[in-house]
């Protein structure tokens, strides 16, 4: 496998008369946040590896509006939504995959009533389909026998009832999958949802991410896995706060590292 990523821009691809099978919605974190960019690249590596025909919007993509809407700014949310829908419908996009559960939820559940109807996947669902179809092989390799605990992102798990896709991928790594007491529909939020990512927490006894990381570390994990850029940030910060040295990886990163695809 080569080091260069193959990342077509949708406008260019259409100009060449080609149409991708799926649009990869990178999201703001995936585009600009250092930790999330690693996830973006890992996912692209897997798409390249599996030979998937995809494209990104590039500079034509804009925030879905999720944090604005959850901050109460319906006006700004709908502005973003309508602009994005105009672009997506203009390109006749049918299928979208994204690595961000917040983008996933908004595109899937909130765009339809504003005229944006697409088939939307979280990357864990998309990768699991590739695995099932035999287009992607996951190697245990480096992670064989390692203890992995999965933190459910609220917007993927409880809010969109997707619990097994990320777990099926982690199980394919030959790792030992462990669960926290509060998992799946009872999963505890990392503290970033509802636009909390962008503000300081209100005063209290402790920060939510610290509470969550204590629970995760109690399972004695070698790796904490998750499937959301905000969760990744919050959990990573919580691990640093605890003074421990446990890597926090997105599912896509875990698969890439395990198979030594990088």
């Amino acid at each position, binding site marked *: 496998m080569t080091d260069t990523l193959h990342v077509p821009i949708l406008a260019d691809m259409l100009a060449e008369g080609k149409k991708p099978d799926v649009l990869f919605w990178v999201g703001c974190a995936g585009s600009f946040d250092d930790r999330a960019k690693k996830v973006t690249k890992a996912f692209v590596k897997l798409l390249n590896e599996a030979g998937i025909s995809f494209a990104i919007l590039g500079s034509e993509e804009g925030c879905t*509006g999720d944090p604005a809407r*959850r901050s109460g700014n*319906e006006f700004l949310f*709908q502005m973003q939504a309508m602009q994005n829908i105009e672009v997506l419908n203009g390109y006749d996009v049918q299928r979208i995959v994204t690595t961000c559960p917040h983008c996933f939820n908004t595109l899937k559940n909130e765009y339809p009533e504003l005229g944006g109807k697409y088939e939307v996947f979280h990357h864990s669902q998309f990768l699991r389909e590739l695995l099932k179809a035999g287009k992607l092989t996951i190697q245990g390799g480096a992670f064989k026998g390692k203890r992995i605990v999965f933190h459910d992102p609220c917007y993927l798990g*409880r809010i969109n009832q997707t619990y097994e896709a990320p777990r099926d991928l982690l199980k394919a790594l030959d790792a030992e999958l462990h669960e926290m007491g509060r998992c799946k529909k009872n999963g505890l939020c990392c503290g970033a949802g*509802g636009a909390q990512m962008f503000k300081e*927490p*209100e005063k209290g006894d402790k920060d939510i991410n610290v509470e969550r990381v204590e629970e995760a570390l109690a399972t004695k994990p070698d790796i904490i896995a998750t499937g959301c850029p905000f969760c990744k940030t919050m959990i990573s910060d919580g691990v640093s706060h605890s003074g421990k040295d446990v890597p926090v990886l997105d599912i896509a990163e875990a698969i890439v590292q395990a198979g030594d695809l990088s």
Partner: protein
Amino acid sequence: MAAQLAFFILLTAGSVVFAWQVQRLRRGLAMGRPSERNDQPLRRWKTMARVALGQGKMGSRPVAALLHVVVYVGFVLINIEVLEILVDGAIGSHRFFAPYLGGAYVGIIGFFELLGVAVIIACLAFLFRRHVMRIPRFRHADMKGWPSKDADIILYIEIMLMSALLLMNTAEAAMDAEAPVVVGHWLAPLLSGMDENSLHWIERIAWWFHFAGILAFLNYLPRSKHFHIILAFPNTWYSKLSARGRIPAMPSVTGEIKSMMDPSYVPDETAVPDRFGAKDVSDLSFANLLNAFTCTECGRCTSACPASITGKSLSPRQIMMATRDRVEESLDKGESAKDNHLLDNFISRESLWACTSCNACVEVCPLNIDPLDIILQMRQYLTMEESAAPAPLNSMMSNIENNGAPWAYPQADRAAWINE
């Protein structure tokens, strides 16, 4: 004859007061915007059958679920006996159905008696959980004062009503070895040595206490969290059925934006609300207010809320209790409370901004109550009407407006990661 007269006076008074209470409640619920949740009736009936009738969401806490189902089944089945109480009271008979049902009557009464004993045990266990085990969700700051007292009163009343029923049967069994009861005979030795006259009085007093107690309890319900025994049914019928992660679009905003993007588009001016979001209960929907009156303050929401768990001022249960308190205040004080609002007077801004919208409260509520919906509508008011979002959120939003991302990076660089 005097007894029958007293019976009818009590029954009429109890019913009239209850009807007035229900009317008052209807006025309270009508303060909200009309609900749009009238679609998909089949799914709504099914949800009601599963969640309210079948208690489908109670099982996640098995001990509480078991105790609760005992009281629930006890309440529903033992109340069948009220039918006989009504007939006996009205025509002055004693155990009207006994001759018609024969042996089956004894079986049914015996079953009710055993249920009554089980209800007493369950209520004692509930008191034990509240006062000896001191389960945190019952001791949280929002339970101080009336809410805790209300919970205790309900349990005491239930214990007294069941005890009266058992005492009545025990006294009758002590008088008559052939009395058509079961547990009464087991307990009769407790009353041995009492003369017939005293036993007769005990039996009559227990009967009247039970009858009057039911009417009193009926009228206590609408002022208490315990009204969930009735409101659970309409409340689950009005459950949110759309995708959990969807916040419904405001049509007035949609019209506005469409006319900005397409100058030929004419928005519907009548769709513009008096106020964006919710500052007071009158801005909330009927379903929100029904939620508030249905809430039985069990605190599962608060015990699952990440903000509450980490000591923030937000408690989803408090959001529901505050909403109900504000409606009650408007009903009772009317004009004199018109300068109060749900916001600030009952729910703090700090609580509203502490929510992560994680939906844990919505998930765990055994009655499909949705505190998050109220929180988000109040945030809409704060942001769209008062521009009062916390400063970092305002920066985040101006970044989205300026460069299409919550951080200040140019939109043109969105694909820059490819070459980094």
